[in-house]
């Protein structure tokens, strides 16, 4: 396993739908760690990934991988993305439409690099059979696997993923998460992924960094971040999504998806304004009343 940490300390101004916000992020990612970046859209998550990859130069600051300086605005260092040991999985996958699956992977080979890695990765993501197809002929999940495999061809030490599973259905996401964990275990890269999906965060991430308006609002283990009340942390905790809400006998009857199953919850009516279909929440079981904690 690589034992190199990544240090990020940058300032950057970011134009968002809400206007220009100033980003100010200091973050240390541990060797081999899986870090989830989360937070509302426009908070600077993708921008942070792009700064690490060298696709954007921050207005000021430093990105350092161990003793290698990748970006240093005071010393005028901006190492080109080509020369950073970084793999990037784009939100739109960015597969080359004119190349087959195999050619997409082979494109990434460095000069003189052993071509065996292409077949190895095709096997790892179970795409050997589809190696001759063009991206347009593949399903979303298959395209996602091609993008992932292609990003790993150069054996990056840092893998950056920008909402890689946003477009996949639930069961496909589960399989992709397994695959990512397998690959992470096998190749031992550091991983930073942007995600909104709580289940994904809990399954994959060692730590979560929550960005808000360009600043890190919270960093910690998923348990620490999402269970505000530490005293209750030993109680069972379930992640759910609201499907529908009705009022009956002065109570809210909420249909929610919890652990892949549709459940009915009876809750105090006071929660009605927050509990709208599509909202995510954590459910705590206690003997008296169920407690709901909303997540945005």
């Amino acid at each position, binding site marked *: 396993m690589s034992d190199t940490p990544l240090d990020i300390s940058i300032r950057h101004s970011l134009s968002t739908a809400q206007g220009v916000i100033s980003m100010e992020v200091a973050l240390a990612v541990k060797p081999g760690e899986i870090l989830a970046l989360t937070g509302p859209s426009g908070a600077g998550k993708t921008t942070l990934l792009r700064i690490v990859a060298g*696709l954007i130069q921050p207005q000021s600051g430093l990105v350092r991988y161990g003793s290698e300086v990748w970006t240093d605005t005071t010393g005028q260092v901006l190492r080109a*993305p*080509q020369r950073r040991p970084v793999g*990037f999985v784009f939100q739109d996958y960015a597969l080359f439409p004119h190349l087959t699956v195999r050619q997409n992977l082979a494109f990434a080979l460095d000069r003189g690099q052993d071509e065996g890695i292409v077949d190895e990765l095709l096997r790892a993501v179970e795409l050997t059979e589809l190696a001759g197809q063009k991206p347009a002929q593949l399903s979303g999940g298959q395209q996602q696997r091609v993008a992932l495999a292609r*990003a790993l061809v150069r054996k990056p030490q840092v893998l950056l993923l920008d909402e890689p599973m946003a477009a996949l259905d639930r069961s496909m996401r589960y399989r992709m998460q397994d695959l990512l964990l397998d690959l992470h275990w096998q190749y031992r890269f550091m991983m930073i992924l942007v995600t909104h999906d709580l289940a994904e965060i809990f399954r994959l991430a060692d730590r979560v960094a929550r960005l808000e308006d360009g600043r890190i609002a919270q960093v910690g283990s998923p348990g620490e971040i999402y269970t505000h009340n530490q005293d209750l942390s030993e109680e069972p905790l379930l992640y759910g999504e609201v499907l529908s809400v009705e009022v009956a006998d002065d109570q809210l009857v909420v249909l929610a998806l919890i652990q892949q199953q549709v459940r009915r919850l009876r809750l105090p009516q006071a929660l009605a304004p927050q509990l709208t279909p599509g909202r995510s929440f954590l459910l705590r079981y206690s003997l008296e009343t169920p407690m709901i904690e909303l997540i945005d």
Partner: protein
Amino acid sequence: MDPEPLWLTLRLATLTTLILFVIALPMAYWLAYSRFKGRSVVEAIIGMPLVLPPSVLGFYLLLAFSPSRAFGQWLESTLGLRLVFSFPGLVVASIIYSLPFMIYPLQAGLQSLPASLREASYTLGKSAWTTFFKVLLPNSKSAILTALVLTFAHTVGEFGVVLMIGGNIPGVTKVASVAIYNEVEALNYDAANQYALVLFVVTFLILSIIYTINNRLLRVRHPA
């Protein structure tokens, strides 16, 4: 009908298209991705031939290339090149005149590609050069085809600029469009009609072939 003017038109259009393609590629790339502040000025200059009467452009080129003026003199004394009333002069004038027809489709084609394609190639260790030739151009086939055809067709249809800078020298600068004008002036409507018909049919055929190919390319990229 003397085939010489048609042949000359073909040579002029082919040469102009090829040279312009080579010149326009780097310019289109720069215009598509540069954040240079003076970019709009450069774009306006390139677009001038679209709105300027061809005779205006031809007139200024005639002045510039004239051996009695500084630039024309310099061309003749250092490069031994006379650009007024000569075939090379026609080629140079056509290149300037058709510049926007080559650059704009290429630029628009490059800009329509998702930025992530370029960025993905960079993060996969590939240089801007490799990215341009192996990723961006192969995915801009339709734009390239449009640019080539528009330039070719536009050069075939040139009249004002050609007449101004080239005049009407048989076998040297008398292209088909000028020949049609000559025949009409001499009231040889039959000869004029023959030239006109050939241009009409050839242009129609070229455009039909292009649209067929383009539609096929689009279907490959976005299967129904």
